[in-house]
């Protein structure tokens, strides 16, 4: 058990602000708010050095008494001045001398007693770290050592409980401020992300977004703010690998249910030292989860069981997670979420499973994220031990994971959900080391945090990229609609110019109109008192034929456009097909609206002919004409596509070339405008369908890139 200690004590750089029992109570309560002053305080403990410092030290245990003393002395001197500040250091400095308790070094046992209350507070506080760094001027090296000394407490063998609330400087304060704000911006941007369009990859992107957001809230932000918090060690692995059994064995308490049913654990269970319980019960880490006392069947997926146990060392908490590979997919998500919040990953696999694909996917992810990892290979049969270990080690090396801490647990009888103590000794020691060796723990925490922040470099841009895909997709669909209706308008123009309108019934009616003499009869020599005759039946029929001809040209073009949009959207993606499902035909109102528009246009043309089309003087003196009929002849001239036809020559003679051109241009542009409006209405349907599927925010991708960049700068 003691093996673990040697290095740890030395490596720690700590400031014992935790021991502020009586007097500290007041100030500490105020701590959260008092951070700024804390920074101002010149704190002599720099993190980096601690590591260097500790190494030289021979034995933490041997150093116990001398170390602490020296350290306290130093601390006392320096912080003396800034006593007003509520920080732990001042207190620590003041207390150490008078009271022996504050120093964990001298007495490891007593500490636990005191610390329970005060510690939780100091840990979550972000100040501790800032201070030390802010005040690197004071002799940094000397201190680390002295502080390191305190741990020797372990002498008693209860090293696990060694109450060393050390502030390991994970980050300098400015960096923390900058990082926090950069991360906050990032979080807001990510929170604003909405992937409304169900494109391929959208589900993954949504999941990635949710993961990112959860990780930011559950882990990154709390961790950046308070890096001295106890380390969260997440035990993850396949179903049936023995995660719960392992946690139970280490906790020496049945904190998590074990059994033969797969999957066994559905609700994550966190086991920690009672002193750390408050931090985990109230802390921001995994803040999105509801804390419960014991796993209940009806506990939702957003629950976390927190169980205190004295058998676990302080400063490290074990989190038993659901599996990563059982049929219950919900478990995978929970496990993933826990891993996202982990400071260290303990990956548990078995001799039967170590080649499973899901296991290696997880290992690959750990590697990508740069997470600190330890691997436990359990259920190893003694006779197979040699071969399996060698093979597994080779596989790990091939995967570039050869350097990782490995633990082996033999196949042994599980009693009451626990392994024999002998099987978990190594792991226990490893935990103890982490507990005692603040520096090492901080390093691990920092590495994992770095890994996660690094992963943002690819994960956030990937989200932004998908966002851009969505924006681009939407733009494409829009342009499909526009193009289709533009083509439809072009079709109509072609029909107008090419004379295809003057076919079928329109042609027959025109022949009727002309051949039956009505045409000639519309021209009357001007005679006094002769009123314009009522339009004969034939004129009305002709007018109706023209209207229905125009209508069918419009409907045909709109049908083609709708068809084209449907085809293009279907071709683009299944989502397009879904959106266009009910829109592959023109709207039901189109025919009605088209009929109305054309009737209005015909009236407009008649009006134009009546008012603007003042006939040539010379003509009007001689001939009067019926405006209705003339308007019809004019339309035939307009749509016949040639300028030599009878109709054209007739209107030319009657209205004059000038006036004809004027009316012609006006009539045509009016018709185009009316059809354009009809088509706008039609294409609105597609825009609405698109909008209803979700409007991607075009600016957010840029914001994400910016936030990623800012984050890098802040680091």
């Amino acid at each position: 058990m003691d093996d673990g200690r040697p290095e740890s004590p030395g490596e720690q750089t700590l400031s014992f602000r935790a021991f502020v029992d009586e007097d500290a109570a007041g100030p500490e309560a105020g701590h959260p708010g008092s951070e700024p002053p804390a920074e101002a305080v010149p704190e002599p403990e720099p993190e980096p050095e601690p590591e260097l410092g500790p190494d030289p030290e021979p034995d933490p245990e041997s150093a116990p008494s001398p170390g602490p003393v020296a350290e306290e002395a130093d601390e006392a001197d320096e912080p003396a001045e800034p006593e007003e500040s509520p920080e732990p250091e001042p207190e620590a400095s003041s207390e150490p001398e008078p009271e022996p308790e504050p120093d964990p070094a001298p007495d490891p046992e007593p500490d636990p007693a005191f610390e329970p209350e005060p510690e939780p507070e100091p840990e979550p506080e972000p100040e501790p770290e800032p201070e030390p760094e802010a005040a690197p001027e004071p002799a940094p090296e000397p201190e680390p050592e002295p502080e390191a000394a305190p741990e020797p407490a372990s002498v008693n063998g209860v090293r696990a409980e060694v109450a060393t609330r050390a502030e390991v400087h994970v980050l300098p304060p400015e960096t923390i401020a900058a990082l926090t704000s950069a991360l906050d911006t990032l979080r807001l941007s990510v929170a604003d992300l909405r992937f409304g369009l169900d494109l391929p990859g959208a589900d993954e992107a949504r999941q990635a977004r949710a993961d990112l957001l959860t990780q930011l809230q559950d882990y990154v932000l709390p961790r950046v703010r308070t890096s001295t918090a106890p380390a969260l060690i997440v035990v993850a692995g396949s179903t049936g690998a023995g995660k719960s059994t392992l946690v139970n064995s280490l906790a020496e308490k049945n904190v998590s249910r074990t059994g033969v049913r797969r999957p066994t654990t559905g609700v994550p269970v966190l086991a920690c030292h009672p002193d750390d319980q408050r931090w985990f019960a109230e802390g921001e880490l995994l803040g999105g989860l509801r804390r419960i006392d014991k796993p209940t069947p009806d506990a939702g997926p957003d629950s976390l069981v927190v169980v205190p146990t004295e058998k676990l060392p302080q400063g490290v908490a074990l989190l038993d997670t659901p599996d990563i590979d059982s049929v219950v997919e919900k478990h995978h998500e929970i496990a993933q979420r826990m891993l996202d919040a982990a400071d260290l990953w303990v990956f548990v696999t078995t001799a039967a499973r170590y080649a499973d694909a899901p296991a290696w996917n997880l290992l690959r992810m750990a590697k990508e994220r740069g997470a600190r990892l330890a691997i436990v290979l359990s259920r190893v049969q003694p006779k197979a031990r040699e071969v399996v270990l060698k093979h597994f080690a080779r596989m790990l090396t091939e995967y570039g994971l050869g350097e990782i801490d490995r633990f082996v647990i033999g196949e042994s009888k599980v009693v009451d959900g626990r392994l024999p103590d002998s099987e978990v000794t190594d792991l226990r020691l490893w935990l103890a080391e982490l507990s005692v060796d603040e520096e090492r723990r901080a390093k691990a925490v920092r590495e994992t945090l770095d890994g996660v922040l690094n992963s943002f470099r690819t994960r956030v841009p990937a989200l932004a990229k998908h966002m851009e895909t969505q924006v681009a997709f939407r733009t494409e669909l829009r342009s499909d609609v526009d193009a289709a209706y533009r083509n439809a308008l072009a079709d109509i123009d072609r029909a107008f110019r090419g004379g295809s309108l003057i076919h079928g019934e329109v042609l027959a009616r025109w022949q009727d109109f002309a051949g039956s003499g009505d045409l000639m009869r519309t021209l009357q020599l001007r005679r006094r008192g002769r009123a314009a005759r009522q339009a004969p039946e034939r004129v009305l029929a002709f007018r109706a034929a023209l209207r229905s001809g125009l209508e069918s040209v419009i409907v045909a073009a709109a049908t083609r456009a709708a068809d084209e949009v449907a085809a293009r959207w279907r071709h683009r993606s299944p989502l397009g097909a879904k959106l266009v499902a009910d829109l592959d035909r023109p709207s039901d109102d189109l025919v009605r609206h088209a009929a109305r528009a054309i009737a209005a246009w015909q009236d407009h043309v008649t009006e134009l002919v009546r008012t603007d089309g003042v006939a040539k003087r010379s003509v009007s003196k001689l001939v009067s004409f019926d405006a209705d009929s003339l308007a019809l002849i004019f339309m035939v001239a307009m749509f016949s596509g040639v300028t030599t036809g009878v109709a054209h020559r007739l209107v030319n003679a009657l209205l004059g070339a000038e006036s004809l051109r004027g009316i012609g241009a006006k009539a045509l542009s009016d018709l185009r405008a009316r059809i354009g409006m009809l088509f706008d209405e039609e294409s609105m349907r597609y825009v609405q369908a698109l909008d209803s599927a979700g409007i991607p925010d075009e600016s957010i991708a840029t914001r994400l890139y910016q936030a990623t960049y800012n984050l890098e700068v802040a680091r």
Partner: protein
Amino acid sequence: MTTRPGLAPRLTALTKLVELGPGRLEPKLLAEASTLLKRAGERLKLSSEHTVVALAGGTGSGKSSLFNAVSGLELSPTGVRRPTTARTHACVWGLEGAGPLLDWLQIQERHRFTRASALDRGESQLHGLILLDLPDHDSIRALTDNEADRLIGLADLVVWVLDPQKYADASTHRRYVTELAGHDAVTVFALNQADKLSAEELAELVIDLNDLLRREGVEHPTVVPTSATTGRGIDSLKSVVAAAVSRRRAAIQKMEADLHRLEQRVAKSMPVGEALSAPSTVDDARRLGLTDALCDAVGVPAVGEAMENVYAERSMQWVGWPYPRWISKLRPDPVKTLRLQDVGDEIRGITTGTVSAQTAEVVNAVQALADGLSADMHPVWRTSLQHAARSHLKQLPQTLTQELSEVAPRLDHVPGWWWLLKIWQYLLVAAFLLGLGWLVTGLLFAGESPLGFQLLGDTAALPWVGLMMASVLGLGVLSGIAARNFVELGASKERERLEREMRRRVAAVAESSVVEPVERELGRHHAFYTAMRALAG
């Protein structure tokens, strides 16, 4: 292999589906259907005396140990390294005829083993068994190797080897077990490594596994707890396998189950539902509707009306009483006033009628037919029906125009009886003029006859002459009116005939250019869903 009644028609139905599938079924589903069809065809040709049983499962579950335990020989290497087995091993009970089957399964020669019948003491019921030890499907090696997948598809009976650690792995359940609905008869679950559990634990686990399997759609799971190390349950497993082997039905059952699954999956995207009640031909009402719409596009009624009107108008030039016509000609002509005589001529020229189809209306007519027929169809079929309907759409207006131009009315045509009437009219005019001459002569030379004709000078005859002239005038007017009526009667008869003829031609064009392709597609639609129903068995 003899097929049970029922399988053959279902396979025929599958053939039909595969044939009609391209462009209609999802490519993935279609590929699956073709694979299944091919596989079924091949399997049916091969030995029906053998039953292929595959041991499948995750790495470390003990497939090879079980394989060895069942075969009673150390044929497949077992080990603690994961994954152990990379190549499939096969053990055959009764080799004759199994060769081609093993070739088809692509089992390498050196991995084939035989249980000579001499070895089989009391194992005759296993005669015809081909036991396969598959590689795992869930290790990192399996990511790049689909050997297990391939053979799980080919085997007649699959024994899933599970173990207490892995029995609930997603890699087994999500990828395979959930696909097993309907495969109860050809799937066995062996819960291996039972020796690692206490009796109570085993019982709990078996219950849990059964529940899990049922939840995933395996209605009657066969779960056999086994232990390759202690030999426990091996005999039960053997007897389960032996039962399947001796029935010689596993291959057929497997195919039926596969067909069922395929049918379910196709039905999910293209449910039979009401599809079979969709029309398989274009009914008369729809044909009539299409013909009407196309006639409108050509303007048949308007053409008829125009013809009638123009005839009536033009007949006046021929058979009307000439005097009013002459009088009206004396009125000033506005066209002449505008110096547009040639336009006037042209207008008269228009009367040489032409018939043509209006493209947009033709398009709309065809569209309406397709829409009406496909309203309730699956989108895929709707699209293909539209395509069929439009297959000749480009040439259709042109074809219609050509067809109908042949019967277009010649508006300038002058029937012979118009000439007769015209002559009669002019005869009357002449008679009137003659009478006028007589009257004048009689009045001028009363009593004397310059030409020696007594009658001419006879004043007593003059009133008779006047009377005669009046009656000639009256006769002229009457004959004019009668002629007009005749013309109109003829014109309306002609119009009827014309419309009938045009309709007939439009209907013929519609039939060949639109209805026929549409009916072909409707036939395919019907055949597809009939096949779906047949596939469901």
